């Protein structure tokens, strides 16, 4: 019975962890493409100060524009290094000069990309204009479904794990009912009786959580690490991202265990 509780907790938290990492991956992709901007205007290295200023003014004055941020070549370089920190080959082979400066434009209505592009036609200093929205939209749609699906299944499994833990605790109480009866007769408080069972439930939750964390690391090393060298234009989730899930998974494991243990004990100890 304890095995069932632990294994269900493990699978549940593994799925929750996967959902969290998928979200982290999506966030990284968004970050690498310039953040939640709709339009990226990449600039030629040869752009002059005045052309730069003129372009900036033109963009900010457009009624469809919500905001404009400038990313210098240095900024671009620093960002790249940050995003691809776990892929040293990529960073070392990078010629920072190759990264262009850009204006990151946020629109009030993402559909207005065409209007902006048309207006900038012929403007000097522009290398190219990218419709981020179209790119990101596709990414979000695919990963969104995946992430939500995984999370939903994970939550359902957490509930199952909770039920299993509650049952393990209840079975334990039933098996020790003679001893518990004597404890009550002799004047033990309910808490004195509860604590060993609570600990049992929490240990089950922690083991399940621990296993899920270990497997998440294993999955990352097995599937993501090889991608660092192969698909180099995307930032992949790093060890730090996996580490970030640890407190969430442990907390979830313990919380579910505590709640489930209390529910399991209620029927026996409300005398």
């Amino acid at each position, binding site marked *: 019975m304890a095995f069932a509780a632990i294994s269900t907790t493990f699978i549940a938290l593994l799925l929750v962890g996967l959902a969290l990492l998928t979200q982290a991956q999506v966030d990284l992709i968004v970050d690498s493409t310039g953040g939640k901007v709709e339009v990226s205007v990449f600039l030629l290295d040869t752009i002059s100060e005045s052309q730069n200023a003129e372009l900036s003014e033109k963009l900010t004055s457009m009624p469809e524009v919500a905001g404009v941020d400038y990313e210098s070549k240095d900024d671009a370089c620093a960002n790249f290094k940050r995003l691809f920190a776990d892929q040293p080959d990529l960073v070392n082979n990078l010629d920072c000069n190759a990264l262009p400066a850009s204006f990151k434009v946020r629109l009030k209505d993402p559909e207005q990309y065409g209007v902006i592009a048309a207006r900038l036609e012929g403007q000097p200093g522009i290398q190219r204009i990218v419709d981020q929205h179209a790119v990101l939209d596709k990414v979000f749609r695919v990963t969104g479904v995946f992430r939500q699906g995984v999370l939903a299944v994970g939550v359902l499994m957490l509930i199952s794990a909770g039920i299993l833990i509650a049952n393990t605790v209840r079975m334990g109480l039933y098996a020790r009912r*003679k*001893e518990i*009866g*004597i*404890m*009550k*007769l*002799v*004047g*033990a*408080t*309910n808490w*004195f009786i509860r604590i060993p069972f609570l600990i049992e439930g929490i240990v089950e939750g922690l083991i399940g959580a621990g296993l899920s964390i270990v497997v998440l690391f294993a999955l990352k090393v097995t599937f993501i690490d090889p991608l660092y060298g192969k698909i180099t234009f995307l930032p992949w989730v790093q060890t730090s991202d996996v580490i970030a899930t640890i407190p969430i998974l442990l907390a979830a494991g313990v919380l579910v265990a505590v709640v489930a243990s209390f529910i399991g004990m209620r029927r026996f100890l409300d*005398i």
Partner: protein
Amino acid sequence: MISVQHVSKTYKKTITALDEVSVEIEKGEFVFIVGPSGSGKSTFIRLLLKEEEPDSGSIYVAGKHLGGLSSWKVPYLRRNIGTVFQDYKLLSDRTVFQNVAFALEVIGKPKHVIDERVPEMLELVGLGDKINALPTELSGGEQQRVSVARAAVNRPLILLADEPTGNLDPATSQDIMKLLDRISRLGTTVVMATHDHTIVDAMRKRVVELDSGKVVRDQERGVYGVGS
């Protein structure tokens, strides 16, 4: 010490266990509750422990009104009451020492107190040489003595015994009764439910007789049956 006032208790609306029972027991008394099976003796004991609540009437134990006692306070009430039952109620996977120590552990007594009092108590009941035995290795009489030791180790105000000699032969029963008598002389109020004539007659303590839930006799230095 114990005041039972007009207490009635019915089970499943038809079975009357106790009917307007009133009994006053002073500190240090030794009282037998006698009567045939079904007369309400065990119910009486259970009410004193607040394992059940009366349908009507009031019960005061050590000055506290049981009716007004909230459930989280019940353990603290029971720490003042030692109990001995017919089936000994020992933990079969623990030694004699551990069984008696249990009563002290559960109320948070430190190890040095336990290590002092438990052997003392076991000597008192005559089990000094069986400290590390398991209940399965003991005779019925010895197990009951462990039970008595556990009941008394906390120096309770009251000791309740429900048919403690029920599973024991006459000779062993006498030994247990001597123990209970000794404990009573040390100041503990003893209330014992039994239908064992011989014991009651031999000891000439106060006898409260129940029949079909009613008190039919309350006699100092009594015997089991009237005219026996």
